[in-house]
């Protein structure tokens, strides 16, 4: 009862504020006029600057109400907290069921290894779409605070992805479901079991014919075993699987090629030539992306045998921006290109009249056995089959391409699976529906109208297990809070099949349950804990010494010997039928997972919402993305609201003109427009699921786009995305082709000033023990955004919300600038991570009136929060603009959950204080203290900054410049090493290794010939 007070009141309080649709309508005509008056220079991002006055922004805000701003609306948040505080106090009076009175006493015997102030690391695994990311989790006195990659696991090697990095925030999300509820009312877990018992016993007599289990992708051997056992006992029951970001086409393609479902795994370390057929394999969400990024980046070294990447893609992606050759085509045309390549490499049965992109094929033929063709998950089965065939013909199988058992424990066609479930539901065949996670009411294919099927009374008992009270939970009678993976026992398979153990780092904060426990309830074997279930599965599959097996598996984070061995499959496909071409309508419509919030499951994660998407640098929204030529034809500009029609439905969204987007094609991103995501995610962006059917899960023809005359603010964190200015190009990212680089390796060093170019004698850092420096290899960086979230998590960086991001007040200490260069229809893209440069002659230090930013003898530009009075002079004088200011009280000092989440080694900043990247000074200090206690010094490899540690590409190196053997010294001695804005003589400690591209010289000649 105490808890429902807590829950009910805040929702009411927030609701009063959130419900802006009833506010008065505003006059958009005046705004348009205002915009017309202030037409800006002909720049790509011109409209961005014209957002107009405060009134304008306010008006826009009211016109397009944003839940995001409520996040920032101090009044409602404070109000919420006050209410919560009050109800907590009341709960205290009446006696709280969840917090029994306990006495706090010191340990009589200190637990082994627990030293207050020293973190411990536990291996576990984060899963996304079923695929496990092996991780190590930092725990401060049993509070998980930070996720790191598991350096020993082949699927990570220390790298992570953005979702894993941000998952720790989900654990502490105050909007998580905190109670078992029945029709929205709080019930106890026992009451749920009581209620479930009756229907279950009925089902027992019917062999479970009325039972349907709907899961997301399951790779957990234990869970799959449990469900299979249950299905064996209840043979009439059915297991359905649905996930909006599914791999149906991958498996269908495998069936087409080999007649069976197989998993494809690539070894990019051996690939000299990589051809991507619309595969964004360097960004989180592509299974194995962390490992692929590592292998890919390692081969981008221009001094060794540098690889070459061809990308044919339908939507600009970070992978495409790294390509040496990129071909933007409509998604439906990728098949044609694939066919051209297949024909060119003489895949039997494939005929193509078109030459297509033949030189890529020539390159592939030259690298038989050391090339790879990767098809994207959203491409048609035929493209996958063609890719398999090409790899087969080139002899890549067994060298760069491997086929294994599917990682997915139940690789059924997702759409079909859900389809049959809905049919059964409507036919009244379902008595008991158990939905284990996911959010089908929000993300199911539109034509199924899953939500209405779920809402109808055709199903007697609907039980939902989920972390949040989301759209699906609203439609089920019972909602059981799901334990976060950091609270759970489980297991899961990585992209290569290796089983990772999932172990909890903390007791479930809200008594959450796991899918394992739910299945036991269903099977009537209550009382078993998650740990017992996982153990009992592995007892059957482990060797004799289970204890040793268990300890080792938990310690390492994975189970030895579970990696799937490559499987011999033979290509069966003799013909590759053309996919049915859908016609009608004007434009092709692409659906893509959102780079930040995936399918919508991370919508309530502030770190991810505010994470600038790799290319657009957009936060808090999804745009309607179109190419520049199409925008010109339709007279659409940035932020114009357009109406998108597809599948007979219409949605409105703001337009984003993306350089390099194929013409006559529109891309929209899934996951936004949630209504029940929580206080952070509800109401951000617009929902495109209504346009998405199971026939067109990824792309389809027949979309219409019409301007509405309205506008809508999109919060992008980057000013300009071109290095061009009207008075010339600024050499911010230095780039040459491999050929040019070989002729002139020192090309990037032009702007470097002489060392002695100062009136004052520089401080002699060489006499110090340490002299910290960083080097970032722009060639390796794939713009995956990992470092940003890792930094945010490590350094307790605040989330500011859309309104503040629009004003330019986001707080990221590390940003990744994305620049384009070249023709707008197909530019080159560059990523440049920008942390603090830790300049030796730091302009910021000179101007601070109170010495709040000063230099350490180790070369760090230290920021003394306590001393800062907030004149912001330092930021004005910082040429790199890496300083971030707490214009308001951005840090949440009140939410109790966030107090648990924070890194205790890093100050939580209050308002009025400047902050910036510190090179993770807390990590340096920790290691320095350790070293001093051992009467030693910090050695190479002891110390990593958070960005460096998380980087799957190994693009960041940090270390001691006074150690001649340090990696960072080796990088800085490299010909490609250059300082950003070196001519300002700030002597930055962070330097960059210039980018070298490896274009096919023949293709370059052809292209330049075409141009002239």
């Amino acid at each position, binding site marked *: 009862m105490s808890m429902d007070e807590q829950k009910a009141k805040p929702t009411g309080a927030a609701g009063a504020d959130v419900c802006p649709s009833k506010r008065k309508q505003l006059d958009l005509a005046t705004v348009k006029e205002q915009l017309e008056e202030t037409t800006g220079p002909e720049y790509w991002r011109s409209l961005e600057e014209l957002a107009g006055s405060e009134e304008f*922004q306010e008006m826009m805000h009211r016109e397009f109400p944003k839940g995001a701003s409520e996040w920032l609306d101090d009044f409602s948040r404070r109000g919420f907290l006050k209410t919560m505080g009050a109800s907590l106090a009341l709960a205290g009076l009446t006696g709280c069921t969840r917090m029994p009175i306990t006495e706090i006493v010191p340990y009589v015997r200190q637990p082994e290894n627990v030293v207050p102030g020293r973190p411990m690391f536990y291996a576990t695994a984060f899963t996304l779409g079923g695929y496990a990311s092996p991780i190590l989790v930092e725990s401060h006195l049993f509070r998980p605070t930070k996720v790191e990659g598991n350096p020993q696991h082949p699927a990570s090697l220390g790298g992570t992805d953005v979702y894993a990095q941000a998952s720790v925030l989900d654990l502490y999300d105050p909007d998580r479901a905190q109670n078992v509820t029945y029709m929205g009312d709080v019930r106890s877990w026992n009451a749920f079991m009581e209620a479930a018992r009756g229907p279950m016993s009925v089902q027992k007599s019917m062999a479970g014919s009325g039972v349907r289990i709907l899961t997301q992708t399951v790779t957990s051997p234990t869970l799959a075993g449990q469900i299979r056992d249950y299905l064996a006992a209840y043979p009439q029951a059915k297991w359905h699987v649905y996930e909006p970001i599914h791999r149906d086409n991958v498996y269908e393609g495998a069936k087409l090629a080999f007649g069976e479902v197989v998993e494809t795994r690539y070894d990019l370390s051996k690939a000299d030539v990589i051809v991507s057929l619309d595969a964004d394999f360097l960004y989180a969400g592509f299974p194995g992306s962390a490992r692929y990024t590592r292998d890919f980046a390692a081969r981008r070294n221009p001094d060794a045998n540098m690889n070459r990447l061809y990308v044919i893609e339908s939507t600009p992606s970070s992978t495409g921006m790294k390509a040496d050759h990129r071909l933007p085509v409509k998604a439906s045309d990728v098949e044609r290109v694939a066919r051209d390549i297949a024909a060119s490499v003489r895949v039997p049965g494939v005929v193509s009249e078109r030459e297509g992109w033949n030189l890529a094929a020539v390159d592939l033929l030259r690298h038989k056995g050391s090339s790879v063709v990767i098809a994207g998950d959203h491409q048609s089965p035929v493209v996958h089959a063609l890719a398999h065939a090409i790899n087969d013909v080139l002899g890549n199988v067994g060298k760069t391409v491997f086929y294994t058992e599917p990682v997915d424990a139940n690789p059924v066609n997702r759409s079909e699976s859900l389809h049959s479930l809905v049919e059964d539901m409507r036919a009244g065949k379902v008595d008991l529906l158990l939905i284990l996670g996911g959010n089908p009411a929000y993300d199911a294919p539109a034509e199924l109208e899953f939500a209405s099927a779920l809402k109808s009374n055709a199903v007697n008992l609907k039980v939902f297990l989920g972390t949040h009270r989301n759209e699906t939970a609203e439609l089920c009678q019972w909602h059981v809070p799901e334990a976060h993976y950091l609270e759970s026992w489980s297991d899961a398979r990585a992209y290569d099949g290796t089983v990772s153990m999932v172990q909890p780092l903390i007791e479930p904060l809200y008594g959450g349950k796991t899918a394992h426990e739910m299945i036991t309830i269903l099977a009537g074997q209550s009382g078993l804990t998650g740990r017992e279930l996982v153990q009992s599965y592995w007892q059957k599959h482990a060797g004799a010494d289970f204890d040793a097996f268990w300890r080792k598996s938990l310690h390492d984070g994975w189970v030895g010997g579970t990696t799937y061995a490559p499987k011999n499959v033979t290509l069966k496909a003799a013909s590759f039928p053309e996919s049915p071409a859908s016609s009608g309508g004007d434009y092709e419509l692409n659906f893509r997972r959102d780079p930040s919030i995936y399918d919508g499951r991370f919508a309530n994660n502030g770190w991810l919402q505010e994470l600038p998407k790799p290319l657009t640098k957009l936060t808090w929204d999804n745009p309607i993305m179109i190419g520049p030529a199409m925008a010109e034809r339709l007279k659409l500009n940035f932020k114009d609201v357009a109406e998108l029609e597809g599948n007979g439905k219409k949605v409105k969204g703001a337009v984003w003109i993306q350089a390099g987007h194929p013409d006559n094609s529109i891309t929209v991103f899934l996951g936004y427009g949630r209504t029940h995501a929580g206080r952070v995610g509800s109401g951000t962006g617009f929902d495109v699921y209504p346009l998405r059917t199971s026939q067109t899960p990824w792309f389809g023809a027949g979309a219409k786009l019409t301007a509405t005359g309205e506008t809508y603010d999109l919060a992008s964190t980057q000013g300009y995305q*071109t290095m061009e200015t009207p008075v010339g190009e600024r050499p911010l990212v230095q780039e040459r082709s491999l050929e040019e680089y070989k002729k002139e390796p020192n090309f990037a060093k032009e702007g470097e000033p002489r060392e002695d170019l100062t009136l004052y004698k520089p401080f002699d850092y060489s006499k110090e023990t340490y002299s910290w420096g960083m080097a970032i290899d722009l060639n390796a960086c794939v713009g995956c955004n990992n470092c940003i979230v890792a930094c945010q998590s490590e350094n307790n960086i605040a989330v500011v919300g859309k309104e503040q991001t629009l004003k330019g007040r986001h707080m990221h200490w590390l940003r990744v600038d994305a620049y384009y260069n070249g023709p707008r229809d197909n530019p080159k893209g560059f990523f440049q991570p920008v942390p603090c440069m830790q300049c030796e002659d730091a302009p910021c230090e000179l101007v601070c009136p109170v010495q709040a930013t000063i230099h350490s003898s180790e070369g760090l530009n230290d920021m003394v929060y306590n001393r800062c009075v907030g004149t*912001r002079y330092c930021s004005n004088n910082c040429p790199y*603009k890496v300083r971030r200011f707490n214009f308001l009280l951005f840090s949440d000092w009140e939410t109790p959950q966030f107090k648990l989440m924070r890194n205790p080694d890093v100050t939580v900043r209050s308002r009025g204080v400047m902050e910036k990247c510190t090179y993770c000074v807390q990590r340096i200090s920790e290691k320095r203290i350790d070293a001093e206690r051992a009467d030693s010094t910090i050695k190479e490899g002891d110390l990593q900054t958070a960005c460096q540690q998380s980087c799957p590409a190994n693009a960041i190196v940090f270390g001691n410049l006074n150690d001649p053997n340090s990696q960072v010294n080796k990088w800085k001695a490299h010909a490609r090493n250059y300082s950003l804005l070196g001519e300002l003589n700030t002597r930055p400690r962070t330097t960059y290794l210039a980018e070298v591209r490896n274009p096919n010289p023949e293709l370059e000649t052809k292209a330049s010939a075409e141009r002239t």
Partner: protein
Amino acid sequence: MATNTQIPVADRRVPVIAPGHTFSTITEKISNIVLSRPVSLGWIFGFLIVFSMMNVLMMALGYLFIKGTGIWGINIPIGWGFAIVNFVWWIGIGHAGTLISAILCLLRQTWRNSINRFAEAMTLFAVACAGIFPLAHTGRPWLAYWLFPYPNTMRYWPNFRSPLVWDVFAVSTYFTISLVFWFVGLIPDLATLRDRTENVWVQRIYGLLAMGWRGSARHWHRYETAYLLLAGLATPLVLSVHTVVSFDFAVGIVPGWHTTIFPPYFVAGAIYSGFAMVLCLAIPIRAIYGLQDFITMRHLENAAKVMLATGLIVAYGYGMEAFMGWYSGSPFDSFLLWNRLHGPYRLSYMALLGCNILIPQVLWLKKFRVSTGWLWIISFVVLVGMWLERFIIVVVSLSRDFLNSSFGMYYPTKWDWMTFAGTIGMFLTAMWLFVRILPMISIFELRTLLPESHVHEATEVKQ
């Protein structure tokens, strides 16, 4: 009467004091404004307006202290917005007062005598308005005293290399000297008011402030020495304060800030805007209180000439900035020039050129210099232009600096505008009170302009 109208100055243009005045008419006319003129409805109405504007400032500051500087439009990269723009603008306005009272005093420009009092008051109020901003713009204003070098347990000093610390010294010195100078100048007149009032309480207050002034020869002797010394002290401040303020920018490396021409260009700009403000105030006051005899067209014309001269220096400054943008060959500087002319704030820059360079050129024509209406309009335009100049320097430079990725835009919020309007309210409130409770024109100095004052001198010369 006719015998007394002979003006002992060679200059026979418009006199600095209208014919027909004697010691007693001057004293009467000026002191009566304070002592016996009834409080008019107009004054009360005006006061209510400016006082409510001042209260807007209090509200804006109150909310600022509660919430933080985020209520303004500033961001990263534009860390300084209206606050610093207004600070520099107000400080600049103050300069005219000091120039008139100190430099013109040393140069024996006696025409200054009828306008120096309220010009000094204007300085004081303007500096007070300016002084609000350095405090208010800090993120943690309750700790702003850390900018002062005071002994503390942290054994921590401010960073003497930072121009903001120089600012603290420059502005606080300036305020102190201006206050002392102004007060010292008031003493003989306070005594006059003390002697002339019939209300015993008013007499006591003025008596207290007059510090026992009896007007003896020894008093006068010491007084004039002290006044001259203070004028000598204040004179370098006219140059130093805005020079130091310009260092805030010139020391920074931001394109558009990092310029050696800033100190003279800022000082000229300050005097430019200061004289504009003097005219903006003098013209209506003169009309309302019938002071055309004391503040004559000669004064207005002189002020207009100063404006014209300083305006040309400012124009030269703009020209040099543009020239250096091209001549330096620095891509950042040349982009700065391009951005001012074509960037998103180009309208501000065009308005700046119009207000500060183009329009004031009409002052070459005597017709405009002797028309109070035109003068007032031109002065107002110059005030707007000088405000825009600071806006261009502070905001536009910051909005486009080195990394294209960090280009940003600044949109002032209602709180920015409220703070700005509020300081104008505070300034005018102080002026409103000043004209009613203190002699707005220096009585004793004005009396020295009468021929009678020079009889003795003339005799001495003859002997």
